[in-house]
């Protein structure tokens, strides 16, 4: 136990104190904070937002004698454009726009019942046209209703929104609205990706660390003092702790960023949108998945002789994680498909797929319990097997080959007396 702590603190301490770790974590945290505050930052650089409202020259050639343009001008306060009634023809307006007096030109022709609008402008924002169209539509509706001389009640009759509620079929069921569906979708997507990233990066880290100790030949000295199995677990936990610290810093950065931003919309994401029970599941699966993949990674690291061979050895593991990731991407749209259900029982896929099923669909509690138990059992089993291969592998040098390596390692670690 003592040696476990020594290995654990040594592994974690070395990572946490290393410049690379501190620098990359800080950069990632800064990146997250700035990403959340992107709007504020952009606004700071582009100056005061209000004065920069793009100007639209409105050439009103309708039968309504300039009523459209005047009405649009009065919209300025609420919209994102400043409409200016241009008393001239389109050609003049366009040449003025070229001299940068206006950003856009809007030409209106026709009558109230057959209104035509031509919008001239350049730029990449596809929303501009939509917004202008909405403004014109609104203006037209206002003019039309006033032409029909409708009273308040009649207006309300037309414009009052429908009250639309979604309810589950059974009393205890749940119904997914488009909004909550999208929220969960993105959250599950994000967390599945996080699980993938953690498994791959930390797995590689474990394998590299083991292989480095082997190639520098310090391994023989270490295993002459500490049981390889203890050492392996100490290493997996140590690197896991470093990973957890990294992750926590990034989560804290996200919180800090959201408070700095001061925007209600972003704060809402943290207080209302995020489903914290999902986060707890994610944490559970990240940890279990880490042990499943970490054990295999340590074993693979122990099978190679040189740090350069780690990438080759760890490839199958990364492929597994990638397959799990891509299957989950598919599963996001079909969480109840049979093969997603079946695959979620496979330990290497469970962390991502079961999490996805919990997030996106409805999984009975008993199934969550059974699959989680399976995952825990296989994590233990995988680590027991990995430890045996690890024990033999750390003393084994030579060219890397999977089949031969595992066979030889098992033989070396065999209790013969």
């Amino acid at each position, binding site marked *: 136990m003592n040696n476990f702590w020594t290995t654990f603190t040594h592994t974690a301490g070395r990572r946490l104190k290393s410049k690379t770790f501190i620098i990359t974590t800080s950069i990632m945290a800064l990146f997250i904070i700035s990403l959340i505050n992107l709007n504020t930052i952009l606004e700071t650089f582009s100056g005061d937002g209000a004065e920069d409202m793009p100007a639209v020259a409105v050439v009103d050639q309708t039968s309504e004698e300039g009523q459209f343009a005047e009405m649009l001008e009065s919209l300025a306060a609420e919209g994102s454009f400043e409409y200016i009634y241009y008393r001239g023809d389109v050609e003049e307006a366009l040449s003025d726009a070229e001299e940068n007096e206006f950003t856009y030109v809007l030409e209106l022709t026709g009558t109230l019942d057959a209104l035509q609008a031509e919008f001239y402008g350049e730029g990449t924002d596809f929303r501009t046209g939509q917004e202008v169209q909405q403004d014109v539509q609104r203006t037209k509706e206002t003019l039309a209703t006033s032409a029909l001389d409708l009273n308040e009640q009649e207006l309300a009759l037309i414009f009052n929104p429908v009250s639309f509620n979604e309810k589950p079929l059974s009393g205890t069921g749940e119904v997914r609205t488009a909004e909550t569906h999208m929220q969960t979708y993105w959250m599950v997507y994000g967390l599945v990706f996080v699980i993938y990233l953690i498994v791959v990066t930390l797995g590689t880290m474990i394998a590299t660390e083991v292989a480095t100790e082997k190639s520098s030949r310090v391994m023989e000295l270490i295993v002459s003092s500490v049981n390889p199995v203890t050492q392996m677990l100490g290493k997996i936990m140590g690197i896991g702790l470093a990973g957890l610290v990294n992750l926590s810093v990034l989560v804290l950065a996200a919180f800090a960023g959201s408070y700095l931003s001061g925007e209600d919309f972003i704060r809402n994401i943290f207080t209302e949108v995020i489903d914290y029970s999902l986060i707890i599941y994610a944490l559970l699966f990240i940890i279990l998945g880490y042990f499943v993949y970490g054990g295999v990674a340590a074993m693979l690291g122990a099978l190679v002789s040189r740090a350069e061979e780690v990438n080759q050895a760890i490839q199958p593991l990364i492929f597994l994680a990638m397959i799990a990731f891509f299957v989950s991407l598919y599963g996001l749209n079909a969480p109840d498909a049979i093969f997603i259900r079946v695959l979620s029982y496979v330990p290497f896929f469970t962390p991502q797929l079961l999490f996805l099923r919990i997030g996106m669909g409805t999984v009975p509690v008993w199934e969550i319990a059974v699959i989680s138990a399976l995952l825990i059992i296989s994590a233990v089993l995988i680590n027991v097997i990995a430890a045996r291969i690890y024990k033999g592998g750390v003393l084994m040098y030579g060219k890397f080959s999977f089949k031969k390596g595992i066979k030889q390692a098992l*033989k070396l670690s065999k209790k013969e007396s």
Partner: protein
Amino acid sequence: MTLIINNLKKTFDKHKAVDGISLTINKGEMFGMLGANGAGKTTSFRMILGLLDPTEGDVRWKGERITYKRTKLVGYLPEERGLFPKLTVKDQLVYLMKLKGMNKQAIIKEMRFWLDRFGVPEYENKVIEELSKGNQQKIQFIAAVLHKPELLILDEPFSGLDPVNADMLKNAVKDLQERGTTIVFSSHQMSNVEELCEDLIMLKKGKAVLQGNLRTIKRSYDMKNISIKADYDLAFLEDVKGVLKIEPKKDGADVKVENEKAAETIFSRLASKGFVRKFEVEEPSLHDIFIDKAGGSGT
């Protein structure tokens, strides 16, 4: 308090790496394990340390196997040297010695003692990969002895060292023995073994070809070297029964003979031939015995 190895065997696939060696090493003894490359020395050490399980036979130290409960009492210098290349000498030793159950203060105190003794106190905060090979080996040696082990296993401790550093390490090893440490070491440098060991075992293809007290072995070894100085050609001695090899010298020859009887024959042949300036029968060097028995190069 002894280390007893009983009919130790290790087979890899069909290859017999160690094939039935038995020996007893008493407390405070310095024991030499000789053998050409691949004779089974490192495999034997790994079995003594419990890193490998024997196919047959067993190793008992103080009556029990060496398990991870007792590795605190054992020091090991592996043949393949290795430390953490990116760690400083201090961090390195602190970690490795914590695994031996020492606390940090004691480790640093002992470390300074050894660095001073090897004349390199300034290396404390240096990163290992910045040190020369020889100096890395000093640190490796410190990592094997810093925790004051009762049993010390040194696999080729002096290979790759210059004479000054080799002497420094040799003296340290001698001091440790005087303090009561049981030391087992392997070497293929015969001079070191002759200088340090009282008892030894010589391995060839996993089997003991020779075993026992160094002086007794030498004395009882039939093969002799005769150093002759004479003014005439000594080539005629080749015909004498029992002559193994003649090495002509400027003013005579060195003759290797099977036994003392052959030496007597040579003596009488020479006497009938003419005047001899020198005739000396010497016991074989360990080098000769090694080549004779292990059949490898004994440099």
